[in-house]
C-alpha cells in the first residue's frame, strides 16, 4: 500500500515539476509576443511622425521614467499629438498617439532592452537639446 502511495506521489511530483518547467518557454513566448505588439505600435507612431526633424516638432521631455528623453510633434491643434521616448542608446522605448480623444500608448518601459526600434540617438538628443535651449 505504502509503495503504491509512494509511487503515486513521486509520479504526481514529477508531473508537477514538468508542468512548471514547461511554463518557462510559455512565459518567454508571452514576453516576446508582448514586445512585438508594443514594437508594432511604436513603429506606427514613428511612421506617423515621419522624419524626426520637421517643423511640427515643438515639444520635448528630458529624463522621464528610467532616464528617457522624448520628442513631441504637433498635429492639427494638438501640440503633443505624437510622441516617442528613447534611451541613451537610441532605442525607442515608448510611443504615444494622442490624435484621438484619449492617448494610445505603446511602451516597453519595464524592459527597454526588448525594443528593437532604433533611431539615431545622437541626432535625437541634439533635437531635444535644441528645443530646450532658451529663445534667442
Amino acid at each position, binding site marked *: 500500500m505504502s509503495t503504491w502511495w509512494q509511487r503515486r506521489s513521486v509520479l504526481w511530483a514529477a508531473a*508537477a515539476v514538468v508542468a*512548471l518547467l514547461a511554463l518557462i518557454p510559455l512565459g518567454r513566448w*508571452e*514576453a516576446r509576443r*508582448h514586445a512585438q505588439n508594443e514594437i508594432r505600435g511604436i513603429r506606427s507612431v514613428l511612421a506617423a511622425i515621419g522624419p524626426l526633424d520637421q517643423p511640427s516638432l515643438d*515639444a520635448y521631455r528630458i529624463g522621464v521614467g528610467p532616464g528617457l528623453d522624448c520628442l*513631441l510633434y504637433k498635429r492639427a491643434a494638438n501640440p503633443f499629438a505624437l510622441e516617442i521616448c528613447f534611451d541613451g542608446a537610441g532605442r525607442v522605448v515608448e510611443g504615444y498617439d494622442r490624435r484621438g480623444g484619449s492617448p494610445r500608448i505603446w511602451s516597453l518601459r*519595464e524592459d527597454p532592452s526588448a525594443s528593437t526600434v532604433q533611431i539615431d540617438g545622437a541626432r535625437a538628443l541634439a533635437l531635444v537639446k535644441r*528645443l*530646450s535651449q532658451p529663445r534667442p
Partner: protein
Amino acid sequence: MTRLSRERLDLASASVLALLVLAGASASSNEHLLRTAGSPARLLLLVVLGGLALVTALRFRSEWRLRPWVAAGAAAFCALAFVSTGWAVLPMSTLKRDLSLAAVLVVAVLVAGSTAHSPRTTRLLLDGILVAAAVFAAGGLVLWLFDASKAVQPATTEYAARFQGLGDNPDTAPLLFAIAMPIALQRALAPGARRARALALATLLGLAAAVTASGSRGGLLAGFLSLLVVVWLAPMTLRRRAAASAAVVAALALCAWVTTVPSALPQHGTAAPALAQPHGHRGIDAESVLPLEAEIGSPWWTHKAAGVHRSLFGASSRVRALQGAIHQALGRPLLGTGFGAELFVSRYYGFHSGNPEDGYVGLLMQVGAIGLALFVAFVAICMAPALRRRALASAAVGAVAAGLLLGLSQSFFHAAGDIVFVPFWLLLLLGSQPAEST
C-alpha cells in the same frame, strides 16, 4: 519535563513572533532609528522563529501535522514564483522576492504544523501578533503626545490631516491594525478571565480608533468586515450573533463618518494647464504641461480646473489606475513579468503610488492569470475547512479575511518589506489547521 519544554518553546515562539512583527512594523516606520533597526532585526528574528519552530517540530514530531493539500498549495505557489525567474524582466529581483517568500512560507509551515494538536500554541501565537500591533499603536500614540507633527500627516488640498503614528504614511500601520482587530475581538468574546477579555476589548477599541484616525478606507473596511467573520464563526446563539453583527456594522458606519469630519485645505480654483507654455524655450517642456506620470485623467484632456478631492466613496483615480494596471497585465496575461516584478507604470492623474495598490492585480501583473489562480486556490485550500465548520479558529480566519480584504486596496502579498507580509502568510497557514487547533 516534556510538557514544560513545550510550554517554554511555545512561549518563546510567540515572543519571537511578536518581536518579528514589531520589527517588520518598525522597518516600515517613519522614524529613522526604528527603520534602520527594524530591517536587520526582522531577518534575524525570522531565522530564530524558524529555529524554534524546527526544534518544536522535531521534539514533538508525533504532534506535528499539516494537511497535504496545504503543503502542496504552498509548494506549488512558491515553485511558480521560483520558476518565474525563467521569464522575469528582472531575474535577480524576482529571485530575491522568491527567497523571501520561500523563507517565510517554510517558517509558517513549521510553526503552523506544531499547532495541529495544541490550541494553546495557536492562542499564544495569535496573542504575539496582537501584542505587536498594540505596542506599535501605543508607540504611535506616544509619538503623537510628544511630537504631533511627526505622528500626523498635515492636511493638503487633497487630503485632510491624517494620523500616521509610527507608520511611514497613514496607510501603513492600519494594515497591521486591521489584521489584529479580529484577533482582539476573538479574545474579547472567548471564555476566560474577565480582566483579559476587558484588555482585549480595550485593545480592539484602540486599534479601531487608530485606523479611524488614519483615514485609511481600506484599513477601516478590512478591519471591521473581518470582525463580522469572527462574529459569524464564534460559537454563540443566532440572536447574539445578529446583535453583534449589527453592532459591528454600526461601529463601521460611525468610524467611516468620523473619517469625513476633518477637512482638506481649500482649493483656490487651480486652472487647467494651458495647452502650450513655451517657458521662454525654443520648444515646450511637455513635462511641465502634461506630465507622463499624470496623463490619464489629466485636466489637460478635459480642459477643466485641476484638483483632486478625496471623499469617503470617491475612488476615481484608483479606479483609473486599476484599469490601467489590468490593461498592462493583459499584455502578458498568462504568466506576467515575474514574481515580485510589479512593473506598474503610473500614468494616472491624482494617483500617487508606484504600484497598482491592489494585491490581486499586482499578482496578475507578476505571475499572470496562472499565478493568480494558484494563489486563490491556495487560499481556498487553507480556508475551505474553516468556512465549513463554524467552531474554527475565528481569530486566525478573521485575520486572514482582513488580509484578503486589504489586498483589494494594497499590494503586499509579494512584498517581503511590507508591514503585514509575515503576519498574513503565517496567519493563512495557522488558519488552515484542523478545528481542534483553535
